[in-house]
């Protein structure tokens, strides 16, 4: 992209747009969409229920996030193909269908979480879910079918406001600095069910299945060349940093306000109170607005990503910008996800915060499969040539797979056998 800046007849606004887009690169886009409703809820619960004690996990998985995203980026740049394409071509149809089924489950639960996020917003204002959620779903459907990307961009920018508020709020809420440093650096892993469950959710909301597919197809679509690997790597690094910076401050905000007062998060209104030090009474409104935006962005990005990955693997239709009649499967998948999730969320007395975190934990359980496939592909000499993984990257990747598998089993064990 860089070379465009030096060309002669580039007008002012184009340069400005390019600067904006290169700063708000895939890093920030994934980062922001990563902190969707499920993300905000999980980080809030982590901070409110466990104080600063989960910060070390966040710092550890930031490295893992960078390593896995970088692998996805490299795979995309070198092969010029999406993850779904590669799985189909290298492992055959059956394995591809198996992987894609897992992806579908993970993504579906994420979409469900985001629609649940909408329901929580309805709860904050005491609007009946039965009215608010369906309207919202219809709006999203229209946005996707019409492809109104200006609208998506605006949503995207508004959710950023919420995240900046969290960062400022985290600073002025006077966190307990010694405890914060201790929590960030000293690993503790109490064997109680709730801690492990929340930790699993924390992992699954930071590293996501859809994020892995998204980062790769983003770099493929952008047509980044091999010689720009270095700057693409920086972009990924920046994105990982930004995602977790926001997460870090959400946790701190909740720890410094809710945890110290022993407030437990039972619904979205509780979570909103964490923004009190910065916004006072207004916290509720900003949180609701931010959550709504985060949900909208999450549903758009994830449902489209799912449909794209599915059609990519099945190879039936490859056009994302086609109309309904040209790509019926593509739109049917999105429609199905939206419709079913809306119905599910409308079940009365559904505990929203639980759905939000459980969906993220499910993500963690599926991630090892995806990373395993990713690792197989990226160490394929025929495919990657000189760009296969180095020993350190391989080590971190295997460590990621191992630890995620372990914590998933631990969570299942504690949930079902130690209840």
């Amino acid at each position: 992209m860089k070379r465009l800046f030096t060309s002669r007849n580039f007008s002012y606004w184009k340069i400005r747009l390019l600067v904006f887009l290169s700063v708000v690169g895939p890093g920030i886009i994934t980062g922001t969409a990563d902190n969707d409703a499920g993300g905000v809820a999980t980080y809030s619960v982590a901070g409110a229920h466990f104080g600063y004690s989960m910060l070390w996990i966040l710092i550890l998985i930031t490295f893992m996030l960078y390593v896995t995203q970088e692998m996805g980026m490299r795979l995309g740049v070198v092969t010029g193909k999406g993850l779904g394409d590669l799985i189909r071509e290298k492992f055959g149809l059956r394995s591809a269908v198996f992987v894609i089924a897992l992806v579908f489950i993970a993504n579906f639960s994420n979409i469900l979480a985001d629609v649940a996020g909408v329901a929580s917003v309805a709860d904050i204002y005491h609007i009946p879910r039965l009215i608010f959620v369906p309207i919202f779903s219809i709006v999203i459907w229209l946005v996707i079918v019409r492809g109104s990307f200006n609208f998506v961009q605006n949503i995207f920018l508004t959710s950023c406001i919420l995240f900046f508020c969290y960062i400022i709020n985290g600073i002025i809420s006077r966190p307990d600095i010694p405890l914060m440093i201790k929590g960030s650096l000293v690993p503790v892993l109490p064997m109680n069910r709730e801690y492990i469950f929340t930790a699993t959710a924390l992992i699954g909301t930071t590293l996501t299945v859809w994020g892995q597919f998204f980062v790769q197809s983003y770099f493929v679509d952008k047509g980044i060349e091999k010689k720009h690997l270095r700057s693409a790597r920086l972009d990924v690094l920046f994105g990982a940093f930004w995602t977790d910076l926001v997460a870090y401050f959400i946790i701190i905000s909740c720890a410094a306000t809710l945890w110290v007062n022993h407030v437990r998060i039972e619904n979205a209104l509780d979570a909103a109170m964490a923004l009190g030090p910065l916004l006072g009474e207004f916290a509720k409104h900003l949180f609701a607005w931010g959550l709504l935006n985060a949900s909208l962005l999450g549903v758009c990005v994830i449902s489209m990503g799912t449909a794209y990955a599915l059609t990519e693997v099945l190879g039936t239709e490859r056009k994302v910008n086609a109309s309904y009649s040209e790509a019926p499967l593509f739109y049917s998948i999105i429609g199905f996800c939206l419709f079913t999730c809306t119905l599910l969320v409308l079940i009365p007395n559904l505990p929203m915060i639980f759905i939000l975190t459980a969906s993220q934990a499910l993500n963690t359980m599926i991630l090892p499969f995806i990373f395993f496939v990713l690792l197989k592909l990226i160490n394929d000499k025929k495919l990657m040539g000189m760009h296969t993984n180095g020993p350190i990257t391989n080590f971190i990747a295997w460590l990621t797979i191992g630890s995620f598998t372990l914590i998933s089993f631990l969570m299942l064990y504690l949930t079902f056998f130690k209840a």
Partner: protein
Amino acid sequence: MVLFSEMFASELIGVRVVDRLQETIGHVKDIIITLGETFPRITGLLVTLAGDKPENKVILIGEIDLVGKQFIATQGTKDRIAMTSPREGEVLLLRDVIDQQIVDLDGARVIRVNDLKLAKMDQDIRLIAADVGMRGILRRLGLEKIINLVVGLFSRKVPDQLIGWDHVQGLSDGKVAVPSKTITDLHPADVAHIISQVQINKRAEIFSTLSDKTAAEALHELEPMLAAVLIANLDIKKSLNILEKMPVDEVADILGDIPPERSEELLRLMRVRRAAQVRELLKHKDETAGGLMTTEFITIPLNLTVEQVILRLRETAPDAETIYYLYVLDETERLVGILTLRKLIISPPDKEIADVMIKEVITISPEMNQREVASVISKYNLLAIPVVDAENKMLGIVTVDDVMDFILPPISRRKRQKLG
């Protein structure tokens, strides 16, 4: 002579191979074809031998008597069959063709192979079609019967989507398909569509197989960014040849988007007059009339007759993009009128140009914004509009295709741009 009816490749994989005494030899692992013909011939089967240590061996098609879905029988007995070891460089259907992408030349789209259809032609079993539909996927997952049953309840059918092997072109490195026509024969807009769908490193490859003229037209259909990247990556000689075939305004658009060193180099190697025109155009801002216009147009002096003009057109055979309008200049090179091709043809040969031309010329200045240009062109239903300076001297023309994107309704515009 082998017994065979129509079959899909996936139905052959895993089938038991027996000898004439019904003794098991092994199971089919893959199917070997030879390339070079329109419908590639199946030359052998890669078989995983039954036994303690599974080994892969090739059984040539000549040894085989019968091919069916239940079993495959050889002519001889087990110990008398000639088997060879698999060689490097053989093309295997399951490994190299199925699940890969091909270009469907009739539909002008890039699509994935779900299954392959084999059939007997004369004496040989040949690969005749690619299954690219849902049905192929279901068949390979072993779900075809069940789903057909379910769908049958609603008296529907899962449609077959087969593309004849003579209508596809492979994207992998081996020449898997020898189509009756190639990408090169497609309409440039379709070529552009295909190029925008395949992965980046394949783009330049396909592009370099095109004739310069097709390449130039395809380039015009592509998104500007994509076009610039392509030109920047081709070798200098090929890109010069392609640019030579393009109207100057498009050349300027592309050169404005590629690295300055590269565009400077290309400009230096271009014909001097053309390079000067391009440089002139590069001075104007992209989104103004000046940035859109081309400097290739046809002018005629005021004092000729209709017949003289037609004669002169024939003699000089101008290669300008638009010849539907002829621009009439006076002795001081100022624009005084426009002559349409239609008017020129239907007017009596001995009439003076000044008598048949349109004198009320609609012109625009080079600084006019592209949206305004579009609205002027669409308001007066023009094919092209002259751009003039303050002294009414002609600088160039903006043709309707350059502002098409602002005239078309948003939907078709989006389709056009995204689809390439």
